């Protein structure tokens, strides 16, 4: 099986822009190609991850770089879309069909709560069960009940991520909030507050992926894709929108646990071997839950991890150095590739004030509707 590497990465900042998705997407794609030192005409296949864009968006975006005849495929898997697009590129290269592939994530989303018809049934919308944060909140409340996790633990995660984002020019907010401001921000769905959730927005991120052999001919500083895995929750393993019920007896492991285990096995690594993490913080509680599911700590211990500052940039397991989705925003189709761009920047030592000292291995994780989860592990 051939080794697959990333040759270059590019990003269009996440935020809200008076630009078309074609402009945002082609900007990131061109930046990734330039970073890789690769010409668009040499790319043999391209994958676009997106959720809210129209049909054939990939072709419409990439046509701007010149019309070639390569296959361009749009993929969608909710918040995990970017991981699925990257995985398709890895599979294409491993199959021998291609050795130089572009992976692009692009999104342009309406403001405010997402259109509930995208994921909920009409009766759930009519009954008021169609607010994504209500599902995050119900999981948070149960975790608080079972393990003594507090409002302050959740606020501390948001505090950390907002503070990290100050040093990330690609983040939407780049603004530090005091713990007090966070814990006094209005409740969206108890116990989750306004400054503890991410907003849908616009953005794009891209990587150029190659076989190790092809990369050697091109030169540069390739980053190895040690694993790129995708899975969907087993029966009742992930209480998340748009679930209308869950089993009280089934005891299946959650999608993060399943996907991370697969990724760690593929990479021959464990959670202790990872120097930095970018994870799904759709809301601040989600990050707490993921500490446990990735194996950064035991079940119910995540509150202590955040109290001890271990997931700060200077801690022994830094999480969301970029500021996370809470401060970057979540352009769904682009979010995972945005994480990948951050990890690459960390592994190259180019992250400036948010740099994790001596980062050699990084992990990116996304999780969303339907229990779609992707985990990518990159190493120098």
């Amino acid at each position: 099986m051939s080794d697959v590497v990333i040759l270059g990465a590019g990003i269009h900042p996440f935020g809200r822009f008076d630009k078309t998705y074609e402009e945002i997407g082609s900007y990131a794609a061109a930046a990734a190609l330039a970073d890789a030192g690769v010409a668009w005409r040499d790319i043999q296949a391209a994958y676009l991850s997106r959720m809210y864009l129209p049909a054939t968006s990939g072709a419409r975006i990439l046509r701007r770089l010149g019309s070639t005849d390569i296959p361009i495929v749009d993929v969608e898997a909710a918040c995990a879309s970017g991981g699925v697009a990257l995985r398709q590129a890895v599979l294409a290269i491993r199959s021998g069909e291609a050795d130089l592939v572009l992976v692009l994530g692009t999104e342009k989303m309406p403001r405010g709560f997402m259109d509930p018809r995208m994921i909920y049934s009409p009766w759930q919308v009519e009954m008021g069960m169609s607010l994504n944060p209500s599902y995050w909140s119900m999981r948070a409340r149960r975790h608080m009940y079972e393990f003594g996790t507090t409002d302050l633990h959740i606020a501390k995660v948001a505090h950390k991520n907002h503070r990290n984002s100050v040093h990330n020019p690609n983040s939407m907010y780049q603004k530090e909030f005091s713990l007090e401001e966070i814990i006094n921000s209005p409740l969206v769905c108890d116990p989750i507050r306004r400054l503890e959730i991410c907003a849908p927005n616009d953005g794009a991120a891209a990587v150029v992926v190659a076989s190790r052999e092809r990369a050697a001919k091109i030169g540069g500083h390739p980053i190895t894709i040690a694993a790129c895995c995708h899975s969907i929750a087993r029966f009742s393993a992930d209480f998340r929108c748009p679930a209308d019920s869950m089993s009280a007896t089934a005891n299946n492991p959650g999608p993060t646990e399943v996907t991370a285990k697969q990724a760690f096995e593929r990479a021959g690594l464990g959670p202790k071997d990872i120097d930095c993490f970018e994870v799904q913080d759709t809301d601040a509680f989600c990050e707490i839950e993921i500490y446990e599911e990735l194996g950064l700590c035991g079940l119910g211990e995540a509150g202590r991890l955040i109290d001890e500052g271990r997931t700060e940039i200077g801690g022994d397991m830094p999480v969301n150095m970029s500021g996370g989705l809470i401060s970057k925003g979540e352009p769904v189709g682009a979010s995972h590739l945005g994480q990948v761009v951050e990890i690459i920047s960390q592994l190259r030592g180019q992250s400036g004030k948010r740099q994790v000292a001596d980062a050699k291995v990084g992990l990116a994780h996304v999780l969303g509707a339907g229990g779609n989860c992707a985990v990518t592990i990159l190493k120098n």
Partner: protein
Amino acid sequence: MATEHQAPKRVAIRDGLLTEPLDDLAKVRLQGSRCRHCNEVTLGRNAICPNCGGIDMDPVALADHGELWTYTVVRHKPPGDYRGPEPFKPFGLGLVELPDGLRVVSPIEGDVDSLKVGTPLRLKISVHHTGAAGEDVVAFAFAPRL
């Protein structure tokens, strides 16, 4: 000569979600399905078991009581075609654990500030809103057991 008064037609908010008939709402329960193969009980009338894929499913009327397993308060009017009270009032939303072995997402009636995990609850079936053709649309909620 008395004119015959025709009560509006009643329909469940989702086909297969409630036991029929709907004439006496006090007798209506949430509809469930039990898989003969794996024994899992799921919400609604299901032809296929979402746990094991089995196709031998028995309809069961789910219990009319349970316990609050977790909850939130919806503080903002949900987007789209929400048909709750106007003007919008914050409401409790929870997962109600039923003795049948499942937890159901449900509106929780009563004071939003006194919600507590473990609170005993009772099913409430009522007309939720009027449908496009003037029919009564019947839905469910749970309320604290007094």
